[in-house]
């Protein structure tokens, strides 16, 4: 079974998840404050989370290709399919951009002209944090990403059809992959600053881009492991053995530790220096988001660290799937607490302005949906997840599951950790 087909039952489930997500988005919109803060922040949260998973899959694939990695060839098509999610990801982000130009949301404090006029700090940052940069930065950078994702995918599929013994396709892929690494590395940082870090418009951290990208990385690995486990349970990917899962598990373990390292590095430097402009970020989260703040470390570091430390837990479906689910939701919570406090602060200020002008009062400080994720947030997440998987599995069914002319296929088939 080298050709994947989405079965009807799964299709129904995924469409059901998308329907649930849409319903949740509509309900959130209907029962929201005047600025629809909860709706827009949920939308941004999920759009950023899943687009980032697509980006990281592309980046990791480029890194593996450049490093001459042989082990992952049998699961390469899953990475490829994931990287193609950048195309719908661009559409998701376009909605945020349109909303920004149309004044439909108050996600970003710096996009509010009145606020910037009265704020020297935002004025100082306005050469980067402005609507043009956000729009064209997103379009150009994501355009480049999509170009590379398509390039690598096209070459890989062509190799299946007309691969030659001199591995011409693979050599070209290696050049494109190597070219993408510095481009992807730098542009992803700029994207993280624009999309995520700038919701706390006054605050910045030089470590933030790494920290957010690694959060994406771990989520992508977790979701890839779950996808592979699902495909294997359906009888596909027979070539993938426990050895490949073991290596994916090692990546999950290693990058959970790396994430904790970055999280702590950012926290400790800010805690040590104790400068008010910087500590405000953690003060807000420790005071108002204690469950997420400490839960973040428990779900994304302590649990994967202790569970995946052993050799055998990385080789068993039960533990690997359990940890993948924990860190997938864990990093989704991580992005929740990256985005919500800043957006909430911006909305409070905007609503206060509105109150002065006699407009309606909001209730943006209600805890559910703002301080901790509520059922609507979970439903929205499942909706986006359903859409993500639907697209990705659809892409997966468009090519053979095992790239038969890849020069590293033999190595991957005999992989032994």
């Amino acid at each position, binding site marked *: 079974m080298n050709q994947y087909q989405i079965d009807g039952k799964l299709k129904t489930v995924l469409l059901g998840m998308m329907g649930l997500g849409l319903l949740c988005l509509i309900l959130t919109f209907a029962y929201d404050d005047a600025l629809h803060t909860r709706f827009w922040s949920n939308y941004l949260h999920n759009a950023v989370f899943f687009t980032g998973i697509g980006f990281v899959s592309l980046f990791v694939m480029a890194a593996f290709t450049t490093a001459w990695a042989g082990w992952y060839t049998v699961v390469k098509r899953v990475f490829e399919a994931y990287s193609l999610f950048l195309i719908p990801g661009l559409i998701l982000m376009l909605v945020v951009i349109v909303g920004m130009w149309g004044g439909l949301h108050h996600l970003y404090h710096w996009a509010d002209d009145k606020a910037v006029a009265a704020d020297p700090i935002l004025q100082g940052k306005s050469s980067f944090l402005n609507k043009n940069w956000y729009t064209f930065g997103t379009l150009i950078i994501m355009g480049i990403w999509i170009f590379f994702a398509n390039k690598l995918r096209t070459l890989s599929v062509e190799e299946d059809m007309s691969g030659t013994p001199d591995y011409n396709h693979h050599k070209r892929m290696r050049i494109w992959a190597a070219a993408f690494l510095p481009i992807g590395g730098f542009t992803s940082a700029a994207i993280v600053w624009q999309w995520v870090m700038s919701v706390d418009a006054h605050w910045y951290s030089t470590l933030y881009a790494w920290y957010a990208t690694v959060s994406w990385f771990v989520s992508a690995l977790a979701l890839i492991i779950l996808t592979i486990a699902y495909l294997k349970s359906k009888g596909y990917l027979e070539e993938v053995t426990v050895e490949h899962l073991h290596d994916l598990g090692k990546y999950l373990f290693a990058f959970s530790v790396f994430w904790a390292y970055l999280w*702590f590095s950012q*926290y*400790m430097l800010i*805690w*040590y220096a*104790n400068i008010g402009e910087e500590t405000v970020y953690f003060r807000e989260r420790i005071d108002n988001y204690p469950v997420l703040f400490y839960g973040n470390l428990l779900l994304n570091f302590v649990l994967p660290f202790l569970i995946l*430390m*052993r*050799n055998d837990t990385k080789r068993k479906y039960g533990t690997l799937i359990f940890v993948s689910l924990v860190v997938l939701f864990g990093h989704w919570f991580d992005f929740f607490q990256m985005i919500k406090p800043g957006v909430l602060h911006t909305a409070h200020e905007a609503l206060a302005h509105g109150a002065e002008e006699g407009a309606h009062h909001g209730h943006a400080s209600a805890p559910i949906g703002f301080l901790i994720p509520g059922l609507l947030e979970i439903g929205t997440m499942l909706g986006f997840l359903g859409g993500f998987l639907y697209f990705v599995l659809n892409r997966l069914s468009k090519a053979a599951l095992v790239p038969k002319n890849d020069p590293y296929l033999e190595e991957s088939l005999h992989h*032994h950790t």
Partner: protein
Amino acid sequence: MFESANIHHTMANQSKEVLYGLYDDEQVLLQAVHKAKADHLDIMDVYTPFPVHGLDEAMGLSESRLHQVGFIFGAIGALTAFLFMTWVFTRDWPIIFGGKPYWSIPAFIPITFELTVLFSAIGMVVAYYTVCGLAPGVTNPTLDDRITDDKFCLAFQTNGASQQEIDKLKSFLSASGAEEINAKII
């Protein structure tokens, strides 16, 4: 019970009579080890110049417990560092650094991490050398110098074996593809 313990005791002190075969290729060696196990031959040891994938399973070796040693030493290291700093900064010599509380957990984390790694690494090295009987001044006789270069060796101990049993081992070694068959007392 008494007898087996006694044999073990004499074996440890007495010099070993070893019959060994040298192979040119690790795959041939691996086949030979599989065959020896299938024939219920008692392998003394296998020597290779580099790690051979699948050899551990072929020889039926149980999984190393070195990583458990590493975890225990790491935990000891973490506790040592954390409790020591706690004692120093709250009981023995409390000093305020940068307006922080005496018991400042984030500041303790880097040192705790470092001592965890240090204890774990040193503990594993010491445990490994102890279990392998390696220590400064200990000499370990080698069967053949070429097993550190390009030869793969399968060795049987022949203390007290009859000539018939030795002949059987010899024919096994030659049948399984050994390039040379030698006997040596170490």
